[in-house]
Structure formats: C-alpha cells, structure tokens
C-alpha cells in the first residue's frame, strides 16, 4: 500500500498513520494537498466509527527552499465531544445537518499556519462531517460532506473527514512475493495469470485536504510561470506527531505530556513501504526529510530491482545487469529531476536528499491526464506531484524495473517486460473520484458495505 500500515510501530497506531499524500495544481492558481490517515477503514465500523485523534498533531509541510525542512506548515488539531451522555449510539436519529442534535459523537478542528516562525489561526472549530453510517443515519451524505468544506482565513478551503480511499493497488498479489501482471505464470512459483484485485476498493480513510493559493506556498509568495525556474518547485509531505509520553488513568482517560515527536510521514508513495528495509522503517517515520540521506543507499540499490530478475527468470535480463547506483531513482525520489533530462520539465530542489512529493507549480493542470504521469508524457502527473488518479503503483514498479534509467544513461535499454508491467487495478469501476475539491469520493456507507447477499 502507498503507506498503509507500512512500518511496524505505526501499524499499531492507525489514527496517526499517514497513508497517502497527494498534491496537484488546481484551478485559479491554487494547489490542492491531501493527506490521508486511518488505513483500511471498514465502512461498517460501528458502533465506534472512525475519527481523528485529539492527542495527535497532524501537519502538511511544505519545503520551498530545498533543505528538507518545512518553510510553511498547516497544522490540524482535533477536539472530540459527546453530546448525549446516556446513549451507546453514535447517533440517535438521522443526521441531516452538521449541528444535528441527533449526532452524539462529533469532531471539530482548528487549522494553524506556521511560517517564518509565526503561527496564524486560519480556521477555528470547523466541524468534520459524520462517518457515512447508512441511509437512515446519514440520509443525504453528500450534503453533509459538502457542508463540511470550510474557508480558510486569507484564502483557500479545507476539509477534514471521512472519504473513500483513493489509493488502488492489488495488495494480495504484490505482497505474495511480488506477483506482477502480466507475468504470474513466469514467476518462480507460477500461478495462472489473473486480473488485478483492488484491495482497497471499498475501504474508507480520514482525509485532511486543503486548497490554497500557490503564492501561500512558494518562496517569497510568488506565482511561478516558468517551469524551468528553480523556484517553481515545492516539496510536500504529511506528518503526524505525538507527545513523548501518555499516562493512562484508571478511568481510561489519558494525559499526554512532553515534546511532540514525529510518528509518521509520507511524501512519495511507497517510499517507506518498498524502499526502506523493515528494520529501519520505524526510524524513517521518526525523522524529517532532511535526514533522508541516511536512507539514500536503499534508493540507489533498491531491493526490489534485485528481486525482479530473481523472481522472474529470463524476464528482466537488462535489469539484472544494471549494477550501478540508480541515479534515476535518486533524482525522482530524493532531489527532483534536474533540467536537461525531460524536455520542458524539471522539479529539482537542490542537492539535499529528501523524500518529498515535488510539485512544479508552474506546470498547469491538464484536462487530459495520463494515469502514468511523466512516464506517459504527462508533465502534470506523478512524480510531478501526485493526482488522485495517478497509477503510482504501476509507475513505480516500472521505474524500479528500469523504465527511468535511460534518463541518466541513454545507452541502457529497459527490458521489454518493463513497458507492460501492470498493477491491474486502474480504472476500477467502483472508484468514484470527484472533479472538485476535495477530489476523493464520498465514503462508502456502513449499511451498504459489505453488501447484503442477494436473496
């Protein structure tokens, strides 16, 4: 998964587990940034439906100086209340509006922008929508979700609450010894070829999304128009923090104390998931991108690139012979792609190696996106930021298998197999993205998922 339960420690702390980060240019000179938490929510998750944690600080961080440290931070703190002390129910009747008296367990949040050492509250006590319970409890869920989109002081919009998980991937296949399409029959332990299974097809997540003016994110508040200008690229990552200690009381209440410590982060999809060794994943989650030079060797010599020729004998002969450090992946994931490699494109942020989702904000959105992003010739797609529809699993599998190595060594020819690797879950008909903020689809309802058997 992009970063769902990707490390041992955070897999035990789902409310702080950053599962995906998206960033893309949106209309009216804005950028939309989405960070998701709470992996693999079962929609029928009652009676205690999913929610953010009041004891976690959630942040969206933006580096506009290329040093791997945040220059602009949007911070989110949540406050949970029960309105009816005498019921076991999440709601005691239909929730038809965000201030419905029937809604027992609700969350509000405050958004604070941190920049230049100053903190400014952009929105205070904004209501989250309820979880999507079902037709009796949340009969017009779309209206509830729309009502939960709030304006930010100074410009921009925000939404925090449940959505359908936008990430699509065949988890069962990939983590069964890297079973890839369309090569299942060529695996060392072969099986019949089969279509991809979208393991997250009916899972929800909790989303933190902002749509903010570009000049709120860039160095010196500019709106870059030249994609080749080094100041056109910003680096983005989501992160969650807990205080160092929690003391549990006998009444199950907890006191949290001490400095805030990072427990989860996510820039590029799948970085911690498939690049960082299991033994170091927790440490990676605890440090900032400015420390990622410590992990660069795992990018330079990715384990998966060594596994593919071994697991698929004869399918990846050129990859098997590629023993040099992967300068292509180091650029894509840790520094951005410098000028001169792809005509009309760069998202290089300097020599500091940092896992950030790099977005060249001078490249406008396209009305005809290619799911393969840059690999498909679409400069507005991953790894130039990441849109909700980008097929990042297929893109990264192909890149690791050698598709991007010719960028740094034109004499290298990727194996024929590289161009046909597929995760096989793109365009799942059950997916329902929005063409407007916050772009991720409405969450699946607990009444409908899992579906009742036909009688």
């Amino acid at each position, binding site marked *: 998964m992009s970063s769902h339960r990707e490390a041992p420690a955070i897999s035990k702390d789902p409310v702080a587990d950053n599962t995906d980060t998206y960033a893309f240019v949106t209309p009216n000179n804005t950028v939309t940034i989405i960070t998701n938490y709470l992996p693999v929510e079962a929609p029928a998750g009652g009676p205690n439906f999913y929610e953010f944690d009041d004891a976690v600080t959630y942040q969206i961080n933006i580096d506009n100086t290329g040093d791997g440290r945040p220059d602009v931070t949007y911070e989110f703190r949540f406050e949970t209340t029960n309105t009816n002390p005498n019921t076991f129910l999440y709601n005691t009747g239909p929730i038809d509006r965000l201030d419905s008296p029937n809604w027992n367990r609700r969350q509000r949040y405050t958004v604070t922008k941190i920049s230049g050492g100053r903190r400014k509250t952009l929105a205070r006590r904004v209501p989250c929508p309820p979880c999507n319970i079902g037709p009796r409890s949340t009969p017009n869920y779309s209206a509830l979700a729309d009502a939960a989109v709030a304006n930010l002081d100074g410009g921009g919009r925000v939404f925090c609450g449940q959505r359908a998980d936008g990430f699509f991937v065949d988890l069962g296949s990939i983590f069964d010894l890297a079973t890839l399409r369309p090569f299942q029959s060529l695996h060392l332990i072969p099986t019949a070829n089969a279509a991809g299974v979208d393991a997250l097809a009916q899972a929800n997540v909790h989303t933190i999304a902002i749509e903010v003016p570009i000049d709120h994110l860039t160095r010196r508040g500019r709106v870059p128009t030249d994609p080749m200008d080094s100041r056109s690229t910003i680096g983005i990552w989501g992160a969650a923090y807990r*205080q*160092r*200690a929690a*003391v549990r009381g006998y009444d199950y209440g907890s*006191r*949290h*104390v*001490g*400095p*805030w410590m990072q427990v989860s982060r996510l820039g590029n999809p799948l970085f911690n998931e498939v690049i960082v060794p299991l033994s170091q994943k927790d440490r990676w989650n605890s440090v900032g991108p400015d420390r990622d030079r410590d992990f660069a060797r795992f990018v330079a010599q990715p384990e998966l690139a060594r596994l593919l020729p071994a697991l698929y004998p004869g399918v990846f002969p050129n990859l098997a012979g590629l023993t040099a450090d992967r300068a292509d992946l180091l650029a894509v994931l840790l520094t951005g792609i410098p000028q001169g490699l792809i005509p009309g494109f760069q998202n290089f942020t300097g020599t500091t190696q940092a896992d950030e989702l790099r977005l060249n904000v001078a490249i406008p959105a396209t009305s005809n996106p290619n799911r393969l992003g840059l690999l498909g010739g679409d400069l507005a797609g991953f790894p130039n930021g990441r849109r909700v529809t980008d097929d990042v699993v297929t893109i990264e599998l192909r890149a690791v298998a050698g598709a991007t190595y010719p960028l740094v060594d034109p004499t290298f020819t990727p194996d024929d197999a590289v161009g046909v690797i597929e995760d096989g879950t793109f365009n799942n008909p059950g997916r329902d993205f929005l063409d407007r903020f916050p772009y991720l689809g409405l969450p699946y309802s607990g009444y409908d998922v899992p579906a009742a058997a036909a009688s």
Partner: protein
Amino acid sequence: MDPVTRRSFLIKGSAGAVGAAGLVAGGIALTRDDAEAPLSSAELELADDGAVLVQITNAATGEVEVLFGEREVRFTDKALVARVLRSAR
C-alpha cells in the same frame, strides 16, 4: 548565571523563559536542593494542568528527565534517583 534548582527548572520552563532544548544541551546540574521549600502556585499549576512525568534515564549517573506540558528538561541528581529507586523496592 543564577543557581538552578528543580523548582526553577519548572518555573522557567513553564514560563518559556528558558528553552527546553538549551537546558537539554547544556546538561545543567543542580547546585542547591530546596526540596523542603514550599511549592509556589506556578509549580502547583504545572501538576494541575497535566501530567508531570519524571523518568530516570540513567540510574548509575543520576540522570533524570522531566516531561511537562510540551517540554522536557534533564538534570542529574543522584540523591533523588536513590530515593526514588528505594521507594520502588
């Protein structure tokens, strides 16, 4: 620089007059034990606002870490560590 006590650690830390990071980096040692002095209202408020958590990080050297609010301070006090460990027996 004034002598630093456990009390002044907490008061200065809570008031923001001394940065926690500086205290940690400085490795400040106690120079006066005023454990018997009455607590001030500011000190009492620290405990009321939330947990004040004291952790012995190195019993042999007497290193102690105090977590309070969103801060932490560290100091060395072998006598305090000895008393705590004896009380835990």
